[in-house]
């Protein structure tokens, strides 16, 4: 069954540490996205990708990097984690081109102490 999976599902990190969130999709979609969800803000786009090797900045990219080594995998990297990055992070994939719908993973709850 086609799906978007994320790992880890929960993560506790220390301030200043490096955090990598991973996403894998079996939808064979070109586009992948990283969002964070915070109360009062809905979902906000951090980075996205049109395909392997490509990454683009979203609306709130500061403090985050992204990596798309293959069609299936898209990582979000926090080089120096801060408490303000405590949030729930969602990955999504979408076919792109003329199709705009996205399919979401289950989320990763990140706490930075």
């Amino acid at each position: 069954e086609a799906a978007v999976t994320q790992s880890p599902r929960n993560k506790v990190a220390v301030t200043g540490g490096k955090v990598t969130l991973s996403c894998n999709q079996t939808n064979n979609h070109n586009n992948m996205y990283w969002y964070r969800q915070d109360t009062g803000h809905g979902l906000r786009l951090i980075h996205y990708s049109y395909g392997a090797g490509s990454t683009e900045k979203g609306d709130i990219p500061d403090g985050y990097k992204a990596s798309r080594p293959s069609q299936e995998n898209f990582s979000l990297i926090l080089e120096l984690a801060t408490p303000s990055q405590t949030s729930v992070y969602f990955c999504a994939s979408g076919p792109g081109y003329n199709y705009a719908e996205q399919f979401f993973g289950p989320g990763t709850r990140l706490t930075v102490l």
Partner: protein
Amino acid sequence: AQSVTQPDARVTVSEGASLQLRCKYSSSVTPYLFWYVQYPRQGLQLLLKYYSGDPVVQGVNGFEAEFSKSNSSFHLRKASVHWSDSAVYFCAVSPNTGANTGKLTFGHGTILRVHP
């Protein structure tokens, strides 16, 4: 730039009652429009989408939405809600042309609580 407003942060209804969740968008052209649902501790699931054509679109679990170009709205409706419909509902828009097709802008969500 696009934006989405969901004017009702919380809606409470009784089981069996009808439901309307409101969504207003701002866009220079008619965008693609979506409704997503999020159950507790889960990711977002696509309920329905509007690309073009018939302004009333059907989705899963008895949901439908109506696009109104004159009102810049895409309201979600259900004739009779069930307690299991309790969740957070998000309206989202995407450009319908160009490189940003698929780049969604979300509203802040409406928390729906259905009394059993």
